[in-house]
């Protein structure tokens, strides 16, 4: 089994980091499932180090003004807007 047991506090902490609210029964179920899944992920410890060939090339384009969405189009899926801006909840 895992040497990092997943308790309900840990699930709540991760849910908080991920900004996903959970009901209590979700927390209990996830804690149980995460223990199994993370124990399985720990078999990655058996993977040998492999030299990675970095065969990568940057793809660049000139920084020019191009066609884009209009402000109206960009806002049309927002639940709340004001004066042509997105309107979000209060920050604090």
């Amino acid at each position, binding site marked *: 089994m895992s040497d990092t047991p997943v308790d309900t506090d840990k699930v709540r902490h991760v*849910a908080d980091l991920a900004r996903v609210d959970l009901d209590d029964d979700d927390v209990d179920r996830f804690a149980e499932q995460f223990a199994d899944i993370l124990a399985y992920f720990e078999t990655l410890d058996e993977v040998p180090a492999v030299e990675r060939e970095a065969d990568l090339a940057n793809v660049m384009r000139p920084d020019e003004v191009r066609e884009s969405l209009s402000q109206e189009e960009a806002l049309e899926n927002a639940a709340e807007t004001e004066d042509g801006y997105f309107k979000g909840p*209060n920050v604090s």
Partner: protein
Amino acid sequence: MSDGIFITEETIEGADDGPLAGRTVAVKDNISTEDVRTTCGSEMLADYVPPYDATVVERLTEAGATIVGKANMDEFGMGSTTETSAFGPTENPAAEGRVPGGSSGGSAAAVAAGEADLALGSDTGGSVRNPAAFCGVVGIKPTYGLVSRYGLVAYANSLEQIGPLAPSVDDAAELLDVIAGEDPRDATTRDEGTDSDYAAAADGDVDGLEIGVPTNLVDGADEGVVETFWSALDELEDRGATYHEVELPSVEHAVEAYYVIAMSEASSNLARFDGVRYGHRADAEGNWNEEFAETRKEGFGEEVKRRILLGTYALSAGYHDKYYKKAQDARAWVKQDFDEALEDADVLASPTMPVPPFERGESLDDPLQMYLADANTVPVNLADLPAISVPAGETDGLPVGIHFVGSAFDEETIIRAGSALA
């Protein structure tokens, strides 16, 4: 529609002529269609109407195809059965009472049921090939970079590719010809597919083809699946192909590496769903963080929450080296193993899925069991290689797929191999 194939049935007319004139196409609902809602199978995007088309959609309509609907899918592509869709499951037209596979289950079912001539799905760990196998149709996962992902709602972008589903290899290859090729709007695309003629490769000629069979992907499979797989190989041998067995030790760790990487990328990609710019927004009281968390609680289903949380955990301080970095090592190992095996073989063959289609509801209670079902398909996404699933026959009346993996940008060879069977 009662069989759950489409989330939205809407006709998008294509050009008057072109290579796909007169053909109908179902498009997975995580591929953006201008003015037609694109839900990703999620409550979060139930009312989202993109103001632009994905590049593949532009290419389809320019080629004369008519889009007939947005196909059902596992929520955000997360699942192997199309049962995690917020809009209900899809029936498997080829196996009553069974799942169509996932996550492109609606796309595969549309083709199998004759609701569309062709379909587009997306494949992050097998999501085109798995439902192709379960529904008895053909599905291709192209080499990473062959097909533009512009307008595909991202789940795990280092792994996923849009791919075709069709009744025959010839039809799937024709659709791939239309969507393949460089796109200035997706900097990960390459130019190898720009002037392709994959359809010409579907000539059924496997004389001299050398097939590698990774024994560790065959041995663990269901008995009836293994029998069907070997009879398909016999047929290829009768037509002049030869095979040898190969060892791929890295694939034993591919599933855990795949899920760590996919979940990590998902936790980052799905952070964009905050309810402010698009998507569901909770009617909650509180500050930004509280409203954000409530929006995401209401908008996401269980499998999506599970993967976001596991991905957040794998990337969090103290665990990054333990999970994410190790998964990247495993990914490099898988690539190396496949490249070596493909030095002595034109293609690698195995069953697409180690089991016949699941009964509905069978896998949902045990997520780890569902993840393990993808063992044969996920290594290909880790290695960025092309692969095809082709109907190999049936076991107890249930479809079985055979899976061919090729070298990077060598779509012709897997298409040729598959076309000898379907």
